[in-house]
């Protein structure tokens, strides 16, 4: 017998028992799909324990990195701790360490670091003391701009005039407590080889996680070309990312700024359409990887474009940010 814990419920299973059937018998069923290790409808997240290879056959490297398994193909091979792979529900205590304006309405916020993460992932922040009633229990997602080995978490937050959470974070006193949930997100460096060409495309504050991916790639010794394409509607949407100059200095990195409408400083970026720019830059994406961050419509359109240009589905990683 092996002890199995699922969503904090504990029970005993025979070794070799099928995980999905066992969960169904106890009313803990995630979802039964094809039941044959194909459709990925019954994915669960293993936190601890032995995973039989068959339970991860056909999953992407980012799925396996998160410990996702197909329950229908998972036979119990010893003690196991797993959960429904929804958004992590634990909230971690953190503390405001620093605030600074980067440019225009972009706030750099540094807080203490309660957990490890991969560069490019994001975190949900919950307001605590001093917040108005409208912010109680409200969480907003922000991308991480720091590196995992750094001692704190850093966020680049667009502060909107009517944005309750962003205004709250812009004015919260140093030392104030915050609650964090995470880390979340699929856009983290996971090239299949160091020579694989990478496209990092983002609009708005999606650029911060892309910077994280680029830094992680260079740190890993990535030698293939890295195309960073940063887009914005207006030039005020582009902002200087701390550490970007180090990335830009690498011989295999090319950075492009694309703005839809020309502004005062139009000699520092290209005016045009980001989709067309990417298509012109990478007309054939066979064997390449794409990391995409930004508004849902942007993410969906570019994912499709990259796929049609030849990139495999398992080589496209995207995180959509809802406007806060």
């Amino acid at each position, binding site marked *: 017998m092996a002890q199995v814990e699922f969503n904090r419920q504990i029970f005993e299973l025979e070794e070799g028992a099928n995980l999905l059937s066992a969960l169904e018998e106890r009313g803990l069923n995630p979802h*039964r*799909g*094809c*039941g*044959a*290790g*194909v*459709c*990925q*409808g019954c994915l669960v997240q293993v936190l601890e324990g032995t995973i039989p290879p068959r339970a991860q*056959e*056909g999953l992407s490297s980012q799925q396996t990195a998160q410990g996702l398994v197909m329950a229908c193909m998972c036979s119990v091979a010893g003690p196991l701790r797993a959960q429904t792979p929804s958004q992590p529900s634990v909230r971690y205590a953190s503390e405001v360490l620093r605030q600074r304006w980067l440019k225009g309405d972009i706030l750099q916020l540094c807080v203490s670091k309660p957990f490890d993460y991969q560069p490019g992932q994001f975190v949900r922040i919950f307001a605590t003391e001093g917040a108005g009633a409208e912010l109680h229990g409200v969480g907003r997602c922000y991308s991480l701009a720091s590196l995992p080995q750094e001692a704190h978490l850093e966020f680049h937050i667009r502060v909107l005039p009517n944005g309750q959470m962003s205004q709250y974070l812009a004015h919260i006193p140093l030392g104030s407590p915050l609650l964090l949930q995470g880390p979340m997100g699929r856009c983290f460096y996971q090239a299949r080889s160091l020579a694989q060409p990478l496209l990092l495309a983002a609009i708005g504050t999606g650029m911060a996680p892309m910077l994280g991916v680029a830094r992680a790639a260079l740190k890993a010794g990535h030698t293939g070309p890295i195309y960073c394409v940063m887009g914005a509607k207006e030039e005020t949407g582009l902002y200087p990312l701390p550490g970007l100059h180090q990335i830009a200095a690498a011989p295999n990195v090319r950075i492009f700024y694309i703005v839809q409408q020309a502004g005062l400083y139009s000699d520092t970026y290209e005016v045009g359409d980001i989709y067309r720019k990417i298509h012109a830059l990478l007309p054939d994406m066979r064997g390449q990887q794409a990391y995409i961050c930004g508004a849902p419509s942007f993410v*969906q359109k570019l*994912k*499709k474009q990259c*796929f*049609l240009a*030849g990139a*495999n*589905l*398992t080589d*496209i990683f995207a995180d959509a940010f809802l406007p806060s």
Partner: protein
Amino acid sequence: MSLFERIGGAPAMDAAVNIFYRKVLADERISHFFETVDMERQAAKQKAFLTMVLGGPNHYSGLDMRKAHAGMNLSQVHFDAVLEHLAATLSQLGVVAEDIAQIAAVAESVKADVLNQ
């Protein structure tokens, strides 16, 4: 040994979906049906479909097919387009014509459900 196993089983379905889905999205006759769908979820469904027609392990039922395509106003043209891409995909994967014909027959068997007839 089923055709599904001969092609390479579940791992080969990843390659098949990449080829098949790309053809479907690039086809103006049917691409508009996929404008707003989630690509990952759609790919998973297509993987299940391909597994089914290739004789691999599946729990595909006519009722699912009927429910999934209800209200889409699909016609013979759309069905034929998908079948065309299925055949081209299989041929690209090295499946011989004889087997493709047999697979097409399996796909034909769900036509009434897909077209809500």
